[in-house]
């Protein structure tokens, strides 16, 4: 996966809690057997009306955020289905960072495996960011900070192992192969 460390962008504010993965990528788009090409279906039923016309009220259709690479949402982002098509769609659309007060476990994990940085900030910090328009921030994974254009610095926690994986863009399976002896020994012990 693509390494990630510094990301600078205007943030896309999605003021909503409990955004489920059915909304992020709807089931009619899960039949593809590739990992790519899901970006155009991201939030499909919120982005487009029944006739396929853009819904002007939805934030992804707001021209000001067209080139944004940072999505900000409310609590429990990515709940529901384990479909990895959700982070694939987010990545393919162009986001590299998702900021929220909390994430559902499987979604959070799936982001990590795809070089998307999920950042947990406190509820009031996220609400402060969501309340602004065209707010530019700079994310620094090494320093574990999000710095706003107004100079406000938000710090975040991340598991050191996952941080290392993201910064280096490592392929986890190749790493695990280095533990082959341990796996073999385990299998022998259980047999």
């Amino acid at each position, binding site marked *: 996966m693509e390494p990630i460390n510094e990301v600078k962008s205007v943030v896309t504010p999605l*003021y*909503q*809690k*409990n955004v*489920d993965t*059915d*909304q992020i990528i*709807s*089931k*009619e788009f*899960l*039949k*593809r*057997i*590739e*990992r790519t090409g899901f970006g155009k279906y991201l939030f499909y*039923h919120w982005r487009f009306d*029944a006739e396929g016309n853009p819904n002007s009220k939805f934030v992804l259709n707001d021209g000001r955020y067209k080139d944004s690479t940072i999505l900000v949402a*409310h*609590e*429990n982002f990515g*709940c*529901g*289905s*384990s*479909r*990895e098509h959700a*982070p694939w769609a987010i990545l393919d659309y162009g986001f590299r960072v998702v900021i929220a007060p*909390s*994430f*559902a*476990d*499987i979604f959070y*994990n*799936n982001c990590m*495996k*795809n070089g998307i940085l999920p950042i947990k900030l406190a509820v009031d910090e996220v609400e402060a960011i969501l309340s602004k328009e065209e707010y530019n921030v700079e994310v620094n994974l090494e320093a574990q900070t999000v710095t706003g254009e107004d100079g406000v610095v938000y710090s975040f926690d991340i*598991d*050191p*192992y996952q941080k290392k994986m993201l910064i280096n863009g490592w392929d*986890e*399976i190749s790493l*695990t*192969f280095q*533990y082959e002896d*341990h*796996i073999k020994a*385990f*299998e022998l012990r*259980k047999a």
Partner: protein
Amino acid sequence: MAKTIIEKIWDEHVVYEEEGKPDLLYIDLHLLHEVTSPQAFEGLRLNNRKVRRPDLCYATMDHNVPTRNREQIKDEIARKQINTLQENCEEFGVPLANMDHPDQGIVHIIGPELGLTQPGKTIVCGDSHTSTHGAFGAIAFGIGTSEVEHVLSTQTLWQARPKTMEIKVTGELGFGVAAKDIILAIISKFGIDMGTGYIVEYTGEAIRNLSMEERMTICNMSIEAGARAGLISPDATTVEFLRGREHVPTGEAFEKEAARWLALASDEGAVYDKTVEISADEIEPFVTWGTNPSMGSGVSNNIPLTSDFTEASDRAAHEKALAYMGLQEGMPLTDIAITNVFIGSCTNARLSDLRTAASVIEGRKVHPTVKAIVVPGSQTVKKQAEQEGIDKIFLNAGFEWRESGCSMCLAMNDDVVPAGEHCASTSNRNFEGRQGAGSKTHLMSPAMAAAAAIEGHIVDIRKFQLVNA
């Protein structure tokens, strides 16, 4: 020291541990289906990797498959996905129950049916409802496709040690109250993210008194409370369910296994990171009125008012949900008209669920404005139901009787709730558009869904049964 079953199973499966790293955990059973596996197999091919332990994998086709006219799948992309799984299983030597196989069915229904699901195992699948298998006292959780590839290549996963939570269900269930109502009540009371970061163990006499089928219904929806896994310590009910199943040992070997399984149960005095309690006596038959599984209530209640919520984000969510559902705050739940009924899914499509629903509708007719379908969870369930004549009861009442699969639970095949219509569903998710774009889902138990089919609106099964007794 007293240990929970979660700690016991975890400790038995750690392949490697090191400070500052997640544990490398061994996986005993890897279930696969057509939607979340193609990219994983493709990854193996691109990197010239094999499936390490095909003997610990088992695949089936469920999400996409048509529930009638299976010979000709009209949807070309769906057909390609189904054929891809067939080819991948052949190429990598993974056992598969394909669409024509007598064991085909929803992956979480056939695992237990075949006895692949056993106490003490670590079980994964590229599907969030893998938590279902926890009913047997296994650590079972859903994973993404990258992790599917990781398990295929290494039979392990890097996993941070989870926190443990006990959800204690005390007391006794009242008349007309089902396992589905317990879990819906838990999610509504504690919220859809109460379980984030935890593996949950369900305890208490109300849980102990449940059959294995009912326990599966509870564990199935653990993910709807945000928990990755939910489990129940094994007991005599667990052992008797597994006895004689295809993939469990026989004779003395079985007795030995059974003793080992029973010893896995949480020790007296084991400590959890968190404990919550709910009393079964207070639980009513439940229905959801909103767009996530926590937006539900006992059937005798009204839809809450927006002003009942204190937080701004909750008020916004409530308004958005009601606007989507086309419902008014404060209206009685039993006033909600239903035009579609779906009895199916990995939550409630086992034989006992179909029996219950059939007993409600026997000798009655589906309301003229309702379209109702039954989709058995597996071919085995379907066959057994037909042997008992349950299919006839449904057909005579005006239900459609289909082949097994996920079907209208997520509407990836042709079984779709039309836009704007309300569906009484025995499935597990009522997210916007879950059963088809613009569909409006109300989650409930099989008996409640069956009664709604007869009356054409949501009804209180307790009253229905008293009146019709």
